[in-house]
């Protein structure tokens, strides 16, 4: 009878399902002999499709509108910029071949490449650059990140077909490095006019890959731009890519994402969780690529609007009592680096001398709090004027990069010096932090290419600025303000680095913050994939990628 056959088939396969987990290891070792891990041949292999699993979905592929790093990883392949920032922080030519800065630092003249065209055939020229930048400052575009990067841009003048003058409201030394960021990519004016609001679903640029198709929640496909011949200095292959196609798959669940690389269903996957890093290192078929992102590390900010955190002594006591090393080692199993400064390593002006400068000293921390008049009560919590010494530690939900767990460890550590930490995990960071400033300690990070990023965070804010959203430290220091202002306008590179070193030292000395970790961007890839590299900000580059 049919039914009986069916039941046999099902029962056998169900029994297999239960038994197979036990045989799993023997199955995986069988394939290890297939490993071929030779050095890449002199001539990279042409053709093939790279499948690359992303952790989250891009919101839009319009560089001027998107605010997500994951979107940047995709549209970096589609759009080029005027300049590129090299690993040493220097600015190098890309779509612009050379440039001059006016004496007052308020205007730039760029010479553009004459041999470039957009994927839709539109010629690339000064008009296109002007169109792109004017588009960003047009409120109708609803630019967010791109707009803040382009500021203090005022206008562009087309001097010749391939010469453009850009005018700024005030001098900005961060301007060139901002121009290298992918949100300031140059878009095709004809395509923007054609697609309007839907340009983010139909992006057209001059990049090494052309947009093909975006099936929501399935994949985004880009194909080789065969005309490409203007690669920047941070890739070896300046011409057309070796790959025929890249297919970005969106795989939010991390176990599935890593499993898909191990099963060969995708060739590469981003954002490897710390617990998988060790096992992937031993996997003969998989390689692990890691690059530290640059900008502002994950940093805990004291809210200096609140008592007693407006007092440098109280902040220093906390600084001495938090054992950042043990937090980072416990939670990230040696896969994240500890940070020491308000800036990450690798950014211009990073002060290496701060490394190791803060040491845990519980006795000293206790002494400081004693001096401030906080006495330990019977429950071990310090009290002054009948009020317990509490610290309101706010963090957002979901638990991104285990940040909620950091709060729990800090709670335990500060107990040792008699501070009661109240952890408040909220879904509504926008109102708790940025509208009401209702926190004593809150952590955040930012990817950025220039130390000028410090100014937006640490400079004293005007009441008008505070009305829009509250600044994180909520403090004010004239000396620091001066340093940050000088940093924005100083044209001499060496002097500028000195200024930012002083600013970093001041921020740490006055215990404005507790820097915690530098976020590494990780990629797990099959060993058959060669040549994945990263730009200065940690975005993947596919110009040199080939598949064996």
């Amino acid at each position: 009878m049919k039914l009986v056959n069916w039941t046999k088939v099902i029962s056998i396969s169900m029994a297999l399902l239960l038994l197979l987990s036990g045989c799993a290891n023997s199955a995986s070792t069988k394939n290890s002999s297939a490993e071929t891990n030779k050095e890449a041949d002199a001539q990279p292999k042409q053709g093939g499709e790279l499948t690359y699993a992303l952790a989250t979905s891009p919101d839009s592929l319009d560089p001027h509108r998107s605010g997500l790093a994951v979107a940047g990883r995709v549209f970096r392949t589609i759009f080029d910029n005027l300049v590129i920032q090299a690993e040493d922080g220097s600015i190098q030519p890309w779509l612009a071949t050379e440039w001059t800065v006016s004496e007052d630092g308020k205007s730039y003249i760029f010479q553009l490449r004459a041999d470039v065209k957009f994927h839709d055939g539109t010629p690339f020229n000064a008009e296109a650059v002007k169109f792109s930048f004017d588009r960003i400052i047009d409120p109708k575009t609803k630019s967010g990140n791109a707009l803040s990067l382009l500021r203090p841009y005022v206008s562009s003048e087309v001097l010749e077909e391939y010469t453009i003058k850009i005018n700024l409201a005030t001098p900005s030394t961060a301007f060139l490095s901002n121009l290298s960021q992918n949100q300031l990519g140059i878009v095709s004016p004809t395509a923007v006019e054609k697609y309007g609001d839907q340009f983010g679903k139909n992006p057209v640029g001059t990049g090494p890959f052309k947009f093909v198709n975006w099936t929501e929640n399935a994949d985004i496909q880009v194909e080789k731009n065969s005309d490409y011949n203007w690669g920047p200095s941070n890739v070896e292959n300046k011409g057309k890519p070796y790959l025929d196609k890249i297919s970005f798959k969106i795989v939010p669940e991390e176990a599935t994402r890593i499993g898909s690389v191990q099963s060969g269903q995708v060739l590469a996957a981003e954002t490897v969780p710390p617990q998988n890093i060790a096992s992937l290192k031993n996997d003969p078929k998989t390689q692990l690529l890691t690059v530290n992102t640059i900008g502002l590390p994950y940093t805990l900010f004291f809210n200096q609007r609140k008592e007693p955190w407006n007092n440098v002594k109280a902040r220093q006591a906390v600084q001495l009592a938090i054992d950042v090393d043990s937090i980072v080692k416990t939670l990230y199993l040696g896969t994240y680096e500890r940070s020491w400064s308000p800036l990450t390593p690798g950014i211009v002006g990073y002060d290496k001398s701060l490394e190791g400068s803060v040491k845990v000293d519980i006795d000293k921390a206790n002494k400081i709090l004693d001096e401030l008049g906080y006495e330990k009560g019977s429950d071990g919590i310090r009290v002054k004027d009948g009020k317990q010494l509490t610290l309101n530690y706010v963090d957002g939900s979901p638990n991104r990069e285990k940040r909620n767990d950091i709060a729990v460890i800090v709670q335990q550590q500060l107990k040792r010096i008699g501070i009661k930490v109240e952890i408040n995990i909220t879904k509504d960071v926008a109102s708790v932090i940025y509208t009401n400033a209702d926190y004593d300690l809150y952590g955040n990070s930012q990817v950025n290419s220039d130390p000028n990023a410090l100014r937006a965070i640490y400079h004293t804010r005007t009441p008008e600025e505070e009305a829009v959203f509250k600044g994180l430290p909520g403090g004010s220091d004239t000396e620091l303000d001066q340093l940050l202002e000088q940093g924005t306008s100083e044209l001499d590179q060496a002097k500028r680095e000195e200024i930012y070193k002083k600013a970093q030292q001041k921020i740490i000395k006055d215990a404005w913050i507790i820097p915690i970790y530098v976020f590494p961007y990780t990629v797990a890839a099959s060993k058959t994939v060669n040549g994945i590299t990263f730009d200065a900000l940690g975005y993947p580059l596919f110009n040199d990628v080939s598949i064996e």
Partner: protein
Amino acid sequence: MTLVNKVLLKISTAFVSIIGSSILVFSIIYLLPGDPVLSMIDPSVATPEMVANLRKELGLNQPFYIQFSEYFMNVLQGDFGQSVVNSEPVLPKIVEHFPATLALTITSAVLSVVIGVTFGVLSAIYRNKWIDIIARIIGLFGISMPTFWSGILLILIFSVYLNWLPSIGSDGWKTLVLPSLSLGLVGAGFIIRMVRNSMLDVINEQFIVTLRAKGLSERVVMYRHALRNALIPAITIIGLNIGELLAGTVVIETVFSRQGIGRIVADAIMAKDLPVIQGVVFFSAIVYVVINLLVDLSYSFIDPRVRRAH
């Protein structure tokens, strides 16, 4: 009450449920903590104009009843608004992705019935034999394992180690196997227990003894007579289960990186894209109400006792 009256009554109750859920869905925007507009834009780049524009775009500067009646009238005309993230209209997006979710829901339901009934019956017939023990273990696993966990386990076994089936994607029947198995196992667990118990009850009833005494073969007794009677409670479970399956797609579509409306709503929640969340939740409520209406009505046709009870 005549059958026609009863059907009409059920349909009108369903309509009331739909109106009720539309009110609930619409209120989401007010139930959220804090200002919905501020939570939707990145505060570090927000300007007062951007905030004001978005407030206007969402109609939040109007009184509640005007907002609601506008929303409801628009919904009646098939306009669920547009995404605040990429300005796409919501309904076409749902319509485009719903078939994938429907396919997953149906295969999961079918799998849970096939696995559940098969093992339920076998386990009752071979009570306390090895097959009964296996069936009960599967039942226990299905009920107690969260789908995201069983999903990951299935990927590990069938994709990573055996390399038989794809771990991600939503094109072709192969990509449906693991997700619907992991989603269907939950229902299967319940059905196994249900069918096993009711089979055991039925087997002990006197009419079975009579049938055996009449000399019918054991196979005919079990499959034609006992199983038929044991299936009625299983149908109840299947009806209730459709809602669970629909809700389960949110997790499963994310784990297996499939397309579908579950995935859309998960992404929209992450992006705080209110119009999309409202649209999908409301659409799912309608689907759920309609399916339950059908299941409700089908009882009357399948089980004569239910018909008589009314």
